[in-house]
């Protein structure tokens, strides 16, 4: 491989580092804050990408595991005065164990049944957080002691930024290593067809549980980092809107694309911030940006071309002579393009 090709193969991490460095050295508190939040969410999306992108299992429980991360960190530092780093470790391990325990029965379900069951799990955690006094109820828990090394607090903008991007880089590396490992190949096999995967010796349930647990652990890292950065946890952070947003980030960034997680999170989290002053048309602009991003994604370009060509071609006039013939030709052309 030539140096040029090697550089090209590394363009995504290089671009990520360059953009992150530009944000950091800009000194803008707006960009540093938002980039930190983006990187924190991107970690949860990388986790979701392991489960959905690699293993092909659609789970709406990721916010539930982010909540486990956030609440364990908050409760164990505020109520039990644990060291935040120790609480973080417990949060991540706890999320993995909870995911494995729930995954054992849930991951036997397939398709919509799995989706609904995991949605119920995510919403169950939300309901628990809203109702349980020890979790702060609807008000949540504030003034959570931050992660720190000596005098450096990771709730401060720059250290939080570095921690978030550092852990994002680690999660991305983990994703890449796993993707090309025997386990990753097994996940990709069962994402296509479970029977085919089983016929080549992939224990489907075990592999699905492993993906679910790993995804949950990254969700917990993300949840805990968010709580550490904002020093607040409450049920509003894990509502059904957030679940939808996570999937929006995932699909904008692209399945099996860990760096895309950063792009997806940036589009969903930062664009609304940038256009928040546009009052009534804010929603319209955001929807148009989303549509454009989705259409321009490589796997959707055919759809994009079809939409553009259908706009360019005049619609057949209903009732005019020869319209059926024209419509038939048009359909034929459409098939040809597809």
């Amino acid at each position, binding site marked *: 491989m030539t140096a040029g090709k090697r550089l090209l193969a590394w363009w995504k991490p290089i671009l990520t580092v360059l953009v992150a460095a530009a944000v950091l050295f800009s000194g803008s508190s707006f960009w540093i804050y938002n980039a930190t939040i983006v990187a924190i969410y991107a970690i949860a999306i990388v986790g979701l990408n392991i489960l959905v992108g690699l293993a092909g299992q659609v789970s709406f429980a990721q916010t539930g595991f982010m909540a486990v991360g956030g609440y364990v960190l908050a409760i164990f530092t505020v109520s039990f005065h644990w060291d935040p780093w120790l609480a973080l470790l417990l949060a991540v391990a706890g999320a993995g164990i909870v995911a494995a325990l729930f995954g054992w029965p849930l991951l036997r379900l397939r398709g919509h049944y799995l989706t609904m069951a995991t949605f119920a799990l995510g919403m169950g955690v939300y309901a628990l957080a809203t109702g349980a006094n020890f979790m702060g109820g609807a008000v949540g828990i504030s003034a959570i002691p931050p992660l720190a090394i000596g005098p450096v607090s990771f709730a401060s903008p720059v250290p939080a930024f570095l921690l978030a991007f550092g852990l994002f880089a680690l999660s991305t590396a983990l994703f890449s290593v796993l993707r090309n490992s*025997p386990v990753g*190949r*097994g996940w*990709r*096999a069962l994402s*296509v*067809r479970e*029977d*085919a*995967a*089983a*016929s*080549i*010796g*992939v*224990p*489907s349930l075990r592999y699905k549980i492993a993906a679910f647990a790993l995804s949950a652990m990254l969700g917990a890292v993300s949840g805990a980092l968010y709580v550490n950065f904002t020093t607040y946890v409450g049920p509003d952070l894990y509502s059904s809107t957030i679940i939808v947003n996570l999937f929006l980030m995932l699909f904008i960034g692209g399945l*099996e694309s860990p760096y895309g997680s950063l792009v997806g999170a940036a589009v969903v989290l930062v664009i609304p911030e940038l256009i928040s002053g546009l009052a009534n048309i804010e929603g319209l602009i955001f929807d148009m940006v989303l549509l454009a991003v989705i259409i321009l994604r490589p796997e959707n370009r055919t759809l994009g071309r079809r939409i553009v060509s259908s706009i360019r071609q005049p619609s057949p006039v209903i009732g005019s002579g020869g319209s059926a013939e024209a419509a038939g030709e048009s359909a034929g052309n459409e098939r040809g393009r597809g």
Partner: protein
Amino acid sequence: MEDSVDVLMRIENMTVAYGPIVAVENLSFDVPQGGMVLVLGPNGAGKTTLVSALSGLISSRAGRVLLGRRDVTRIPAFRRVGQGVALVPEGRGTLPGLSVRENLYLGWRAAGARQTRTFGETVAEAVDLFPRLGERMNQDCQTLSGGEMQMLAIARALASRPQVLLLDEPSLGLAPQAVARVYEALGQLNARGMAMVVVEQKAVPLTIVPSLTVVLQRGRVVYARGGHRPNDGELAELYLGGGTPS
């Protein structure tokens, strides 16, 4: 049924059901060492259910599956492949996003401790049987033609060093030339001693006479005969009438 060293796989009184619906009822037959069992039947006859149960993908409600003298009835599919039962699923089951080589690697790895060949030797064997795969080795398998995908699915199953190969409608969706090529390869494999159970809906261009031909109709055997296979006319009579052809 008499015990015989020549029997590689024995299916004894197998019944498979989905809730109240019985898909395969009280089915028994032997797969001899190096033999081929051809299972034919129309849609809904229970063919896919049968190979799924033989491969361990679904559990049987009653009966046993013996591999040699070993009862493998309760062994799940992902372990059964390591015991020497390889399935080529309906619709090929090749894994898009993975190259031909990666697909073969997954098959090779599935043999576990039973694997006797290096991966390089396995690839060479696959290319020897299907030279077209050699030209496509680093291609994403979803760019292959239907026939090439079927070749890959068979090569991947063979990479797991099976004692018996289960093929679920290998001719499905293929052009006649591709079907002929696939069955020519299956004939070669069988001639080298590979035992197989082949499930098909219609008569196929076999280059060899099967050890046993079984015709299923609504989960029951309506025809079973060794050393012969029914022609299209006989099959039509069996499918439509459900009786024994004259």
